[in-house]
């Protein structure tokens, strides 16, 4: 059932984000073409500047648009009219919620790939740019180590799961209200977000503050990369645990406290 749910939701989500992906790719190609032409036709410099501006705008818009589409799809299928079908499917609520989280994650990965592709198109055949990027990457790996970058990439993607579970939990509380479900979901999101921040600060900062040796290490100029990696790993584990808590809260609310209009 999980695979079936994911298949239908992902198909529907992709239909929603496809236009902005296409806009991003087209702007990347057009902006690059203008860039090439402007060397020979100087009067194109102003349109070329506009194209670059719109391209950058599209690159910023893609992740926000994707997050918005995932959240709205979740809200429509779990709380609004389509929820009447979703919640009468012979599927466990845990499976329903899990499918939405995985679909959201997959869509964010696809969006990231599209952004990288667009940037690659925009930089295509610019002398030395890929070599320069490669050098920056290699030197950063040399300085900070591959483990650091792997942790950063994992944290980047886990951030999406953390965001979706947090929003889904907020909606699961908001839907319990008889009126203003959407506004209440937003209010709960703000509350959960701040609780999340407080818990993270308590778990990440307070132990370091209380431990003199850790505090001195973190404040020294020669803080080791192993210490930073360890610290980031703890932050990742905390984020994962918080996401699991939000998931169970969502499933519990949707199972025991569902209140469709």
């Amino acid at each position, binding site marked *: 059932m999980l695979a079936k749910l994911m298949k*239908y939701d992902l198909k529907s989500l992709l239909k929603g984000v496809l236009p902005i992906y296409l806009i991003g790719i087209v702007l990347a190609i057009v902006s690059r073409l203008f860039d090439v032409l402007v060397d020979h036709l100087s009067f194109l410099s102003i349109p070329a500047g506009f194209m670059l501006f719109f391209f950058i705008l599209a690159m910023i818009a893609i992740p926000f648009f994707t997050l918005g589409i995932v959240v709205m799809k979740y809200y429509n299928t779990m709380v609004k009219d389509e929820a*009447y079908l979703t919640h009468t499917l012979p599927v466990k609520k845990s499976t329903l919620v899990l499918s939405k989280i995985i679909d959201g994650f997959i869509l964010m990965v696809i969006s990231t790939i599209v952004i990288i592709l667009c940037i690659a198109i925009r930089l295509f055949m610019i002398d030395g740019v890929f070599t320069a990027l490669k050098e920056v990457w290699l030197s950063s790996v040399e300085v900070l180590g591959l483990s650091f970058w792997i942790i950063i990439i994992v944290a980047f993607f886990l951030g999406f799961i953390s965001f979706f579970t947090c929003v889904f939990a907020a909606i699961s509380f908001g839907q319990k209200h008889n009126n203003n479900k959407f506004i209440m979901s937003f209010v709960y999101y703000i509350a959960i977000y701040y609780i999340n921040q407080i818990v993270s600060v308590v778990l990440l900062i307070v132990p370091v503050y209380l431990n003199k040796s850790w505090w001195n290490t973190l404040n020294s100029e020669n803080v080791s990369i192993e210490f930073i990696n360890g610290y980031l790993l703890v932050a990742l584990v905390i984020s994962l645990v918080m996401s699991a808590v939000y998931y169970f809260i969502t499933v519990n609310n949707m199972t*025991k406290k569902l209140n469709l209009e």
Partner: protein
Amino acid sequence: MSLVEFHNVDKNYGAKKALSDINLKIERGHIYGLLGPNGSGKTTLIKLINDLLTPTSGEVLINGLKPGVESKKIISYLPERTYLNMNLRVEEVIAYFKDFYTDFDEDKAHKLLDKLKIDSKTKLKTLSKGTKEKVQLILVMSRKADLYILDEPIGGVDPASRDYILNTILENFNEGSSMIICTHLIADIERILDDVIFINDGKIVLNESAEEIRSVRKMTIDNLFREEFKC
């Protein structure tokens, strides 16, 4: 064991009591008319059976179990609103139902669509309100369910099509299955009802067989409703 049982069920929306001390049994093989004025609690009662709401107190049992995955396998529910993704084509929602409901008969759905001259390639959002309702009804009636729950199945359909829809319901209703129909168009449906439940202010005020109403009270269900709920 009855198919559906309500034991002392209360449902409150904040301070407002939507249902109060409901005790009810839905037996197998019967067609029930769940009738009452606006805001009487009909849809709340139906939502409780479908696990779309949880009771404030009391217990709802379907086949002896609390509403959940098992009850959803045997209940085919038509809500009073459009609950399909409007960006899909009719054939896509048929594929969707086939994927999720093992009792869904795809051939039957296509035959019913053909009879109503609905093109399965059409996008749902391009259909009229009445045709969307017909598509939903076809999906629901193409399941071989133990219990069909139809909330306002003919509300958005023109009077000329109502008889056709009701016949479709009867022809595709499995023997031994039960059905709960909730509507204001009592005169249109009363010929198909076995039992009648009147609900008002969240309380069941009448639970009687249609035959008794006709033979003992010498009234049509429509007339009894008008008398019971006259303003």
